[in-house]
């Protein structure tokens, strides 16, 4: 394996694993605020108990998100030093702001939220939950600003010594790419949060344990789920896709498997890209749809990969094609499932309709897959550039860190994350087993943990 490929896999592996956790905590943070709000408004203890239950799940996910997140910031320097050296003045800025504006906020108020329920008034405790939500969503924003600049560099210039500098701080923060990507990404995080909440709710109802809490989970999860699944496609996905078609046409052509430019381009629903023959094998396609989705008219021409030199094609191309199709396919399924569930909830029949509770319980892994596939689409689509159109990925990695050293630490991370995953599953199982106990302390209180989790 070449050093370049190893450094790419190193970052891809650690960031993919890391993002399994923040996508849930960012989504859950919003849902916990919703639960606390209902509890406060209606003075309904079930909602407070539900919030406490989800706070336990949140705390473990947050902890793993934190410890797996630290390596991400470091890896810009350790594995991508050439990239950091030239662009640090631009992207170091949002990364530093994430630490200063978000991590301090989150860590301080998470402590209050988890430890302080008895010391704080209900309103102050609600506020601490809100601050945790705010902190995690600010954190997401700065990360998206960083990534968006790599996808669509704006508001910068190159100084005589070769270093990139921000010319407009405001321009960096309001990069249109960042705003679209942020909306799309956060909506995706709420989908994960909602599906996980629905899943546990459906499990408790099907099992007939804690049914009252299960209903609370389902009610909040289905409503948030329907809203986020719809906004995921329209407007956020739609706008982001069109913007991408304008600024990264090669990436869109590869995502759609469009090898040659076409008027009235069709959309391929399923198929296997064949790079040698430059066709899609076994395509299942719908005519004209792609032109319509991008340009609003079925006659418009969509640029295919033939318009771009081979060394500007994203690679690995098939993986990009599949990531995008998995994301879009799952997104469609999410809307269908949540629409049915929401309809039944509205008619008051959801809690008895087992054929809907079953898919709700089983579907929780799918948003994780969809979010991961979405990020793979964005990141592979950006290739072969580390800063789109400006710096190639092959120019960005640490030249003096050999492949052997890269593999050593990659294996180290794989081993460590395997152990973390096992511990995580055991602990989540225990929390599910204990369930949201009613009453003041329940038996969870007797052995209350002294720290966060």
């Amino acid at each position: 394996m070449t050093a370049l490929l190893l450094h790419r896999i190193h970052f891809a592996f650690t960031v993919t694993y890391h993002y399994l956790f923040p996508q849930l905590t960012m989504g859950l943070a919003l849902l916990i605020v919703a639960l606390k709000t209902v509890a406060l408004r209606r003075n309904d203890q079930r909602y407070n108990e539900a919030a406490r239950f989800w706070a336990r799940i949140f705390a473990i996910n947050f902890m793993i998100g934190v410890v797996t997140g630290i390596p991400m910031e470091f890896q810009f320097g350790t594995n991508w030093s050439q990239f950091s050296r030239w662009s640090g003045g631009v992207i170091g800025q949002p990364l530093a702001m994430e630490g200063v504006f978000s991590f301090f906020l989150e860590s301080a108020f998470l402590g209050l939220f988890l430890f302080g329920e008895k010391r704080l008034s209900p309103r102050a405790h609600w506020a601490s939950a809100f601050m945790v939500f705010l902190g995690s969503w600010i954190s997401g924003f700065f990360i998206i600003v960083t990534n968006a600049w790599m996808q669509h560099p704006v508001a910068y210039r190159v100084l005589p010594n070769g270093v990139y500098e921000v010319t407009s701080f405001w321009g960096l923060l309001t990069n249109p790419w960042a705003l679209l990507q942020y909306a799309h990404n956060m909506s995706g995080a709420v989908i994960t949060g909602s599906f996980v909440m629905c899943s546990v709710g459906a499990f408790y109802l099907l099992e007939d344990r804690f049914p009252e809490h299960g209903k609370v989970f389902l009610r909040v999860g289905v409503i948030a789920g329907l809203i986020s699944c719809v906004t995921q496609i329209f407007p956020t996905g739609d706008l982001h896709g069109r913007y991408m078609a304008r600024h990264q046409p090669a990436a869109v052509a590869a995502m759609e498997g469009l090898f040659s430019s076409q008027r009235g381009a069709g959309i391929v629903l399923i198929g296997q890209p064949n790079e040698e023959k430059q066709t899609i094998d076994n395509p299942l396609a719908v005519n004209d749809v792609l032109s319509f989705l991008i340009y609003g008219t079925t006659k418009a021409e969509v640029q295919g990969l033939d318009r771009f030199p081979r060394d500007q094609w994203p690679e690995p191309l098939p993986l990009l094609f599949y990531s995008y199709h998995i994301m879009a396919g799952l997104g469609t399924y999410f809307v269908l499932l949540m629409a049915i569930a929401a309809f039944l909830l509205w008619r008051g029949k959801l809690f008895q309709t087992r054929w809907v509770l079953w898919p709700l319980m089983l579907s929780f892994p799918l948003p994780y897959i969809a979010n991961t596939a979405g990020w793979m689409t964005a990141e592979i689509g950006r290739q072969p550039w580390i800063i789109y159109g400006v710096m190639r990925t092959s120019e960005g990695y640490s030249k003096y860190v050999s492949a052997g050293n890269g593999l050593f630490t990659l294996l180290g991370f794989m081993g460590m994350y395997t152990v973390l995953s096992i511990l995580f599953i055991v602990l989540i199982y225990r929390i599910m087993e204990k369930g949201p106990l009613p009453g003041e302390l329940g038996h969870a209180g007797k052995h209350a943990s002294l720290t966060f989790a």
Partner: protein
Amino acid sequence: MGFIWFWLVAVMLVAYVLFDGFDLGVGILHPFLARREEERQLMLRAIGPVWDGNEVWLLASGGTLYFAFPLLYASAFSGFYLALMIVLWLLIMRGASIELRMQMEIGVWRSFFDGLFFISSALLAIFFGAALANVIRGVPLNEDGYFFLPLWTNWRVGPEPGILDWYSVLGGVVAFVALAVHGALYLAVKTEDALQQRARVFARWAWGVLAALTVISLPASIIVRGDTLVNYKSYPVTFVVPLMVVLSLVCICRFSRHGGDRMAFASSCIYLSAMLVGAAIGLYPRLLPSSGDAARDITIPKALSGPHTLHVGLAWWALGMLLALTYFVIVYRMFRGKVSLDSGGYGH
């Protein structure tokens, strides 16, 4: 601008060492001071609500370093690759052990995470000390401004040093003892009865070791880098800083003998700050000196970001620090006083 950002990053790193320093110290002392399960829980509870926030100082200083001095960030992080990766793994293990310990009521489970908490805290303290020593000693920078250091070579401070040599190991030991003392003094403030007594006794005993190591480390630094004293000689007023080191050491000893726990902890804060600031004065205006040709030193002007970046950075940095300090005041006030075992939350 370079001067300002040099010292802003230095201040953030000092804040990191003062804050995370005491919870690393608690980790080092955890197996020795706590004898019973309740005492172990008390020690963890003393840092429980704050350790995570303390660690944020490391991330925030890393980020600030990244945008203010990108070349330094790129060169140092890739050059110390292996050591940094080990630090990351230790941070992961440490965070996990603090949070996971209480999740199960199984003795073996808790003992395992106690052990992991100790090992990771101790090694982190040593690595941080060694890291500072590496920066003082210098690294073999090439003409691109990069280097790559193996973990060790022949343990000598030669032209081809490893990350660990006799000098950086000494730095690691100084940090280990200094943070253990810092942690003990913090525990003396936060706990009562037997645990507090043991923490005080430890601090008194370890104080002698720390004083001896401090005295050794100064001439060692001058042997390793003859130019350490250049700034001191041109600005004699800076000798105040080493003087502060000595005075604060004396204060630690005096206060801890007379039960002035808070004052002893404050003295320890001054000691750590003075040690770090002293090193920074010796370094300035270099950020990462070359162990060979001085022309290859990574200096402030070489590594500094563009002017607009830094101007804007100053504005949000000031605002962000103000907010961060506010949160710290809120949290430390909420959890002020001695720790006890009754729960403040609902069983998380």
